[in-house]
């Protein structure tokens, strides 16, 4: 196991201390009823752990030495511009891609692991649903693949995304937002304790977006760990904690308030630019 391949670039101003996983972040104490209902989660507490993760594509370091622990029962926002490495990071954490160095653990098990995949919900950036099947058929298919054969969880998942009355509609005829909702339902059918959502709210109207976030919150309250990637900063404040990703590195971590304070800016967008510029200066 490649352990913490020396953080040579650790001297980044304004970043030091923010990136590497400091277990439970400050200010987190009140929020979660951590671990409730997450059977089998390691007592160590980290539901998701990255240690020295590196992924290179040829000369490009898409993920550049990322280390963090994510605690159960919290919502984490992966924020960063397009191409910053959010999707690659999620693929590494879910075991869909093999890291060049370092390792990813979910629920205490090194990825990739098929057993753990059964306990992960993954909503891909593309919808990843079968346009020729109906809404219900799509949800039931993914449920069956996850080993869920009862109707209950499937109906619940469809109700959550407000598609219960469209069960018999062919997915290909749905609107973009409806497809996105179906895609989310397909990631929820097996009630996973860990959820990776890659840009879940793209193309979703504000009203439903609020409902989505309310649902994420209730899942987290039930002990689920949720990792949401987004490049929309106004969603960031709904997360318990944010990880700013830039050029494959975690350049800042903390609650929205902490990050604003750290950057000394009133808004997250400015904070991002500020912190990003600091990194850019050292490159």
């Amino acid at each position, binding site marked *: 196991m490649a352990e913490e391949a020396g953080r040579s670039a650790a001297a980044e101003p304004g970043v030091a201390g923010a990136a590497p996983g400091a277990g439970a972040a400050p200010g987190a104490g009140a929020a979660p009823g951590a671990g409730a209902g997450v059977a089998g989660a390691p007592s160590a507490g980290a539901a998701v752990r990255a240690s020295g993760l590196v992924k290179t594509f040829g000369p490009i370091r898409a993920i550049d030495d990322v280390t963090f622990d994510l605690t159960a029962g919290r919502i984490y926002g992966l924020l960063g511009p397009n191409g910053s490495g959010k999707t690659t990071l999620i693929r590494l954490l*879910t075991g869909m891609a093999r890291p060049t160095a370092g390792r990813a653990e979910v629920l205490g098990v090194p990825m990739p692991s*098929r057993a753990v995949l059964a306990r992960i919900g993954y909503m891909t950036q*593309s919808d990843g649903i079968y346009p020729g099947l109906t809404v219900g058929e799509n949800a039931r298919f993914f449920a069956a693949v996850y080993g869920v054969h009862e109707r209950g969880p499937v109906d619940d998942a469809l109700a959550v995304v407000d598609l219960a009355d469209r069960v018999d509609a062919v997915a290909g005829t749905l609107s973009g937002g409806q497809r996105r909702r179906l895609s989310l339902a397909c990631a929820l059918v097996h009630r996973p304790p860990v959820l990776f959502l890659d840009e879940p709210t793209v193309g979703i109207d504000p009203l439903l977006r609020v409902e989505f976030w309310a649902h994420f919150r209730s899942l987290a309250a039930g002990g689920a760990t949720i990792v949401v990637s987004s490049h929309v900063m106004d969603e960031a404040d709904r997360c318990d904690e944010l990880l700013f990703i830039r050029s494959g590195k975690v350049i800042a971590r903390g609650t929205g308030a902490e990050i604003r304070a750290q950057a000394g800016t009133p808004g997250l967008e400015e904070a991002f630019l500020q912190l990003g510029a600091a990194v850019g200066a050292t490159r």
Partner: protein
Amino acid sequence: MSGRRILALFRRVVQEIRRDHRSVALLLVVPVVMTGLIAFIVREGESPAVDAVVVNTAGPPGLVVAAALGVALEADGGTASLVADEAAARAAIEDGSASVAVLLPAEIAPGVAMTVTIMTNGLDPAGESTQVAQVGRAMLAATASATGMTVPTIIRTTLYGVPSDDPMAPFAPAILGFLAYFFVYILTGISFLRERTGGTLERLMATPVARGEVVGGYLLGFGLFATLQVAILLAWGFGSVEVPALGPLPSFSVGLGLPIAGSPLLAFIVVVVAALGAVSLGIFLSTFARTELQVVQFIPIVIVPQFLLCGVLFPISSLPEILQPLVGLMPLTYAVDGMRQVLIAGADLGQTALQVDLVVLTAVAVFFATIASLTIRREIA
């Protein structure tokens, strides 16, 4: 009508195709290679040397004819040898030591009309026609030069009786096998590609499903439709249902009514196993395609050579020597041979030739299914 807009579209088409190297190759290189291959097959395709056995029941005059026949065949690199009786001749054809048997009439004398029976294996009607014609010419020369006798009448027969005079009969086994294979390949290749391009494969790989399970599920799913297709195709091919005249409508028959010597069920099994091979081939090749067009582009590479070399169009026996090793590599070769064994020879499962065909076809299906499941990319097996 704006010339500039047309020009803009023209430029876009050129830019896009120029960057799609596969399309350029398909357009410019493949036809040249294809016509080259076909020209090669047709030009270099040798009429194979005929090894004939002669059954002589006519005494000394027959020996003279047989000797003359031998001389004529040897001129083309073949041979002629005498065997005791028809049973021995059949045995020689069956085990492949001879390709043609010539049965001379009981009486050979000047002024007596002469009927010669020429027997072949019967499994490769088109190829054998060439050989029969060759022997026929040799017979003509042999009888004329040896005895100055009348032109012989030639009766053609095969190990399995007189060949059907249905002009479709020689093609039926190959065509039925080929079409089922081809359409199943297209359907599977494109469907599985959608799984990749639609993002569902990525999502599927993020579930506990194993790659083998994915390929297994596809094999079953498309296997079902392949089975259905083959069942309908064969029912249509072999069936001949007479619909009686009804009022002003004259009676007519539904189905091609193709002759079949063996069990339709066996023919069905042969084609289904071949089609399952096409399913796994389709899944495997879709790995190397990004668009549906590219799946289609594989046709000249994987389907056309099989079509040319499996004996559908050109008899295998007349293919150039250098291509013969390739023939054995083509899965379709075994499908076509299996169909011929069942349709023409009436083979049952006890026949070694049919067993070999089925075993090879099964092995091909398993092989491609295995490498297809290995090419589905994921870090977890």
